[in-house]
């Protein structure tokens, strides 16, 4: 039977230290091409879910299965390799200030090492055009506004055309207008067939999109 499930959490528990339980026996699935929002207050476990999907963290118990691969049963190097096929938008952008916009975006392609110089140029320009930063190719990150920096981070996440796009609070530091623009961008990528998981604590932004929202509270689903 061919499954449409791309991401599967099965009774996943994640602790940080002895006292903090970020996720508590959490189970859910996300289908290929789905756009899912993770909602909940700070510390609810949203970022932990994204880190587990990306293989940045490993669950203490339970199974995290991505495209049929159980992340607990593969090595650190293999999890790193899987990350090359996942786009990640970080809450704190994680932009590199020692290089310009173009070089920040190309990093995602350099890591895979699959592309020629011409392909790299084309893909970077295409990604920056998709997020509306094509006119800031040679600008340095400190010359960008908060919204532009977030879009730069998105461009880096999508430049290698990942199957899964993870965004951790992409609208957290933006005003409503910019936040909506960013969500529209994700909507456009979703239409292109990318499976997207977005965490956000501002639930009012999410309700208009008519997509599945997983509400989290202290490491469990709410209600």
């Amino acid at each position: 039977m061919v499954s449409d499930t791309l991401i599967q959490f099965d009774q996943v528990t994640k602790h940080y230290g002895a006292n903090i339980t970020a996720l508590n026996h959490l189970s859910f699935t996300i289908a290929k091409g789905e756009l899912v929002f993770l909602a909940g207050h700070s510390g609810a476990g949203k970022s932990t879910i994204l880190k587990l999907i990306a293989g940045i963290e490993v669950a203490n118990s339970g199974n995290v299965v991505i495209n049929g691969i159980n992340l607990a049963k593969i090595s650190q190097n293999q999890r790193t390799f899987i990350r090359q096929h996942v786009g990640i938008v970080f809450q704190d952008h994680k932009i590199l200030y020692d290089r310009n916009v173009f070089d920040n975006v190309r990093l995602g392609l350099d890591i895979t090492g699959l592309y020629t110089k011409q392909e790299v140029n084309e893909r970077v320009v295409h990604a920056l055009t998709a997020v509306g930063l094509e006119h800031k190719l040679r600008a340095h990150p400190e010359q960008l506004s908060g919204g532009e920096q977030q879009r730069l981070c998105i461009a880096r996440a999508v430049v290698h055309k990942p199957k899964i796009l993870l965004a951790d609070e992409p609208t957290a530091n933006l005003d409503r207008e910019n936040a909506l623009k960013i969500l529209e961008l994700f909507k456009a990528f979703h239409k292109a067939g990318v499976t997207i998981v977005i965490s956000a604590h501002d639930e009012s932004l999410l309700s208009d999109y008519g997509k599945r929202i997983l509400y989290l509270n202290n490491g469990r689903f709410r209600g």
Partner: protein
Amino acid sequence: MKLLSHHLQSSRSAWRSILTQPLEHLVNVVVLGIIILICLVSITIGNNLNIWQNNNLIHPQIIIYLDQNSTSSDIGKVEKELRKLSGTTLRTYKFISRQQALNDLQQDRKLKEIASDVVDENNNPLPDVFIVEAATTNPDEVNRLNLQLSQLPKVEDTHLDVNYANKIGNLVDFSYKIITFVQLICIVIVALVVYNLIRLQMLLKVDAISVSRLIGASDSFIMRPLIHYAVLQVTVATLFAVGGVYFLTGRVNHLLFNLNSLFGKGIQILPLSLIQLVTMWLILITFTIFTVFMAVRWVFRNTYHN
């Protein structure tokens, strides 16, 4: 092809890093260069010690005094025995006849005055002599050779300066030990400097490395530019050291040239061969790559956790 492309990119990145901050990297190159220079100087000394040893500059001598009554037939027999030993325990030998010794004595103004009363053409007390050079500096072997030579027919006596032979042997052994020790120390210091260099580079680029790892960079992706960076620095430092050792060799040879006229021997320091230099460079590069690997592992274990 993909790997080659990665290496080319890493090499470009290493060159860019060095060329954009040449002064900062010059200090590293000079430090590495001085250490490698010391190493190359020690190898040069070791080589030349070996050459001098082989060229009889520091080989012990045994003097064989033949019986006063020995005839040319007896001398021929001894020479035949010496010829048999040539190339094994005995390196070279030279015969000085009693007549030749007398002539030499008479030509030496000071000795002539001293010996004029007892030595003349009709009363030559000097013996026929073989001067033998041992093939080894090992005191035990030299003593064995001395005993063997003293037992040859018509040999009145042999003379070996045992202390001299022992001292030479010990000095040569000690020199080799010192040279080996210096070489090992230099390689260890080069490794430590490279280790620290890479550790600092990684800490300077902590953001780039951290982000790269978060978005899927493998260990080899992180390590590759650092290897190129370290190899480039060690290579430049080696070139600097090679230049230095050739310059020093030239200066020392210039000084020795003046001494040669006094001693009448063509003593000179031979520079390292291309093969030796390439071998040395390859050893350093091997250690460098291993050191980068260790440094990256150390930083990953202590700094990054994903």
